[in-house]
C-alpha cells in the first residue's frame, strides 16, 4: 500500500461482501417461494423479499464501487485521499441509512412505510429497484455527492490519468441519472420512460465507464503494460459504450406506450451494445499477452479475465438474445429477462467488485504479493463455484423462459395457457435454479473462508 488513506477502502469491501451474502440468501428464499407459495407467507410476501434482494444488490455494488475508488484514486493521483475522515463518515451514514431501510421493508408493511415516510409529499416509491422511501433516496444523493466531491478534490490536487478521468465521468453520470428517480407524474407512461434513465443509463452507460476504468486499473497493476496502450483501449471501449448505449435505451421503449420509432432505433443501437463488452475481453487478454511483469496475485487476474468473459456472456450474449423488437415482442417480461438480468449483473458488476477486492484486500492486509498459494487455491475453487452456479442458474431460467414463451406467448388467445398454469409446469426447472443458487452461495462461503487460510510455514 503506497498511501495510508487507501485503508478507508477496507470497510467498504467487507460490508459489500456481507450484503452480497444477504442478497443471495434472499434470492434463494424467493426461489423456494416460486415453487412453494406458502413458504414464509404471509410473514414475508414475495414482493418484500424481492425488494430486499434487489436493493441489497444496488447498495452492495455502490459500496463496492466506493471501496474500489478509494483504493485506486490515491494511487492514480499520487497523493493521499483529500479527506479520509469524510470517507469514513459517509461509510457510516450509508450503513445506517441502508440498514434502516432494509429493516423498514422487512418489518413495516409497505403501505405503512409510504405513510411513515410521507411519500405523498414527493411520491417516488413503489417502483421496481427504486422502492426506497424518498428520504432514503435523498440520503443516497448526500452520500454519493460527498463521495464524488472527495474523489474529485483528490484528482484535482494530484496527478490526473485517463483512468481517473473516466472513472470520475462515470461517477458524475451515475449521480446525474439518479436524479430521475425523483421524477413523478400522474401519468404512468411518463414514469416508465424516465425510470429507464436511472436503470438502463446506469448499467449500460455510466456504470460501464466505471467498469472499464476499474478493469484497466487492475490490468495496469498486474501486467505492467504501458499506459498509452491501456488508455487507447479504454477510450475505444467507452466510446462504443456511449454510441450504442444511449440510443440503446430504446430497447426498453418498444411496448410501454412510447413512439413507434423506438422499435427501429432501439433495436439497431442496442444491437451494437455487445461490442464494448467484447472489446473488454480482447482488452484483458491482449494486456495479459503483452505483460511486462508477473504478479504473484494470480487469482486477481483470474477475476479480471472472468469479469470480461462472464460480463460479455450476461450482457452481450443474453442481452442480444432479446434486444431486437420482433423478438422482444414475445420475450418481454418473461423468465428470459430474469435470466439475462442475473448473469449481466453478476458477470459485469459483482465480478468487477470481486476483482478489486481480490486485488486490493491482500495489500490492505499487509500482503503486497497477494495471498499465499494455498489461499489462492481456495479462492479459485470459490471462483468456479460462483461462476458455474450463476451460469447454471441463468441456463435454468433461460429454459423456463423459452417454455413460458412457447406455452403462454406464441399461441393465439384461444390456445395460450394462463400464466399460473405455465408456472406450475416449470416447477422442476425452478428446483434446478434453486440448487444452482445454493451452489453460488456455497462459493461465496468458500470465498470468505479463503480470507482465513493461513500462510504455510516452510520447514527448513
Amino acid at each position, binding site marked *: 500500500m503506497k498511501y495510508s488513506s487507501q485503508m478507508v477502502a477496507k470497510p467498504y469491501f467487507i460490508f459489500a461482501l456481507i450484503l452480497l451474502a444477504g442478497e443471495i440468501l434472499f434470492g434463494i428464499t424467493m426461489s423456494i417461494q416460486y415453487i412453494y407459495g406458502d413458504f414464509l407467507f404471509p410473514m414475508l410476501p414475495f414482493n418484500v423479499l424481492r425488494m430486499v434482494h434487489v436493493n441489497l444488490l444496488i447498495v452492495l455494488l455502490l459500496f463496492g464501487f466506493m471501496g474500489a475508488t478509494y483504493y485506486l484514486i490515491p494511487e492514480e493521483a499520487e497523493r493521499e485521499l483529500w479527506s479520509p475522515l469524510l470517507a469514513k463518515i459517509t461509510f457510516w451514514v450509508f450503513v445506517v441509512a441502508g440498514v434502516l431501510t432494509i429493516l423498514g421493508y422487512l418489518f413495516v408493511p409497505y403501505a405503512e412505510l409510504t405513510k411513515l415516510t410521507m411519500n405523498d409529499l414527493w411520491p417516488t416509491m413503489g417502483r*421496481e429497484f427504486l422502492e426506497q422511501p424518498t428520504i432514503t433516496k435523498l440520503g443516497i444523493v448526500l452520500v454519493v455527492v460527498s463521495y464524488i466531491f472527495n474523489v474529485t478534490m483528490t484528482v484535482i490536487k494530484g496527478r490526473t490519468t485517463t483512468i481517473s478521468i473516466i472513472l470520475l465521468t462515470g461517477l458524475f453520470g451515475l449521480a446525474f441519472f439518479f436524479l430521475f428517480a425523483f421524477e413523478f407524474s400522474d401519468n404512468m407512461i411518463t414514469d416508465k*420512460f424516465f425510470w429507464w434513465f436511472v436503470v438502463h443509463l446506469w448499467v449500460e452507460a455510466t456504470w460501464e465507464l466505471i467498469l472499464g476504468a476499474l478493469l484497466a486499473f487492475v490490468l495496469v497493476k498486474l501486467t505492467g503494460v504501458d499506459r498509452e496502450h491501456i488508455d487507447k483501449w479504454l477510450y*475505444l471501449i467507452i*466510446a462504443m459504450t*456511449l454510441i450504442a448505449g444511449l440510443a440503446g435505451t430504446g430497447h426498453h421503449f418498444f*411496448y410501454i*406506450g*412510447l413512439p413507434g420509432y423506438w422499435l427501429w432505433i432501439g433495436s439497431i443501437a442496442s444491437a451494437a451494445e455487445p461490442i464494448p463488452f467484447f472489446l473488454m475481453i480482447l482488452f484483458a487478454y491482449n494486456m495479459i499477452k503483452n505483460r511486462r511483469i508477473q504478479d504473484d496475485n494470480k487469482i486477481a487476474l483470474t477475476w479480471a479475465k472472468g469479469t470480461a468473459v462472464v460480463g460479455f456472456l450476461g450482457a452481450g450474449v443474453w442481452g442480444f438474445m432479446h434486444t431486437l423488437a420482433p423478438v422482444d415482442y414475445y420475450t418481454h417480461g418473461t423468465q428470459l429477462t430474469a435470466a439475462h438480468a442475473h448473469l449481466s449483473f453478476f458477470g459485469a458488476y459483482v465480478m468487477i467488485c470481486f476483482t478489486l477486492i481480490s486485488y486490493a484486500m491482500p495489500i490492505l492486509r499487509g500482503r503486497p504479493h497477494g495471498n499465499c498459494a494455498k489461499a489462492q487455491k481456495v479462492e479459485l475453487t470459490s471462483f468456479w463455484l460462483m461462476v458455474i452456479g450463476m451460469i447454471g442458474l441463468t441456463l435454468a431460467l433461460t429454459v423456463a423462459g423459452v417454455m413460458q414463451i412457447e406455452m403462454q406467448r406464441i399461441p393465439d388467445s384461444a390456445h*395460450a395457457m394462463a400464466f399460473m398454469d405455465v408456472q406450475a409446469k416449470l416447477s422442476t426447472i425452478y428446483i434446478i435454479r434453486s440448487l444452482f443458487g445454493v451452489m453460488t452461495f456455497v462459493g461465496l462461503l468458500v470465498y470468505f473462508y479463503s480470507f482465513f487460510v493461513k500462510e504455510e510455514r516452510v520447514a527448513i
Partner: protein
Amino acid sequence: MTERITKDMARNIYFGGGLFAILVFVGLTFDTVKQIPKLSHASKITKSVALGKKVWENNDCVGCHTLMGEGAYYAPELGNAFKRLGGGDEAAFKAYLAGWMAAQPLHVKNRRKMPQFHLTPTQVNNLADFLIWTSRVNNQDWPPNIQG
C-alpha cells in the same frame, strides 16, 4: 487492427461519438415527451385514475406483477387485466376486481399467494380505473395474446 489506432484517435472517437450520441438521445427524449400525452390518452387520466396509480405504488403491486411487461415475474401481467378479467366491460371488471381483492389470500395449498391489502371500496374502484386506463394505452399491440 488496433495497432493502427492511436490513443489520440481513440480519444477523438470517444468525445465526438459520445457528444453525437448525447445530442441524438436528448432530441429523441424531447420528442417522446411531447408524444406521450397522445399515446397514453393523458386526457383520460381522471382523479380516480391518478389515485389508483397511487394505490398501485403504495402497495408495491409491481413487486410481484408486471405492468406492460415490466416488474416482477411471479404473478400475472396486469396491463391487460381489464381485457382478460373484465372482457372489456367496465362494470364487470370492477365487480371482479373487488371480489378478487377481498378474497386474498386464496387458500390453495402451495399455490403462490397474493397478500390481503385491506383496501377500501373507493381504493379498489380507483385501482380498477387505473387498470382500465392502462389497458387502453397505445403500446404497439403488446401483449401478443390475452394471457399477457
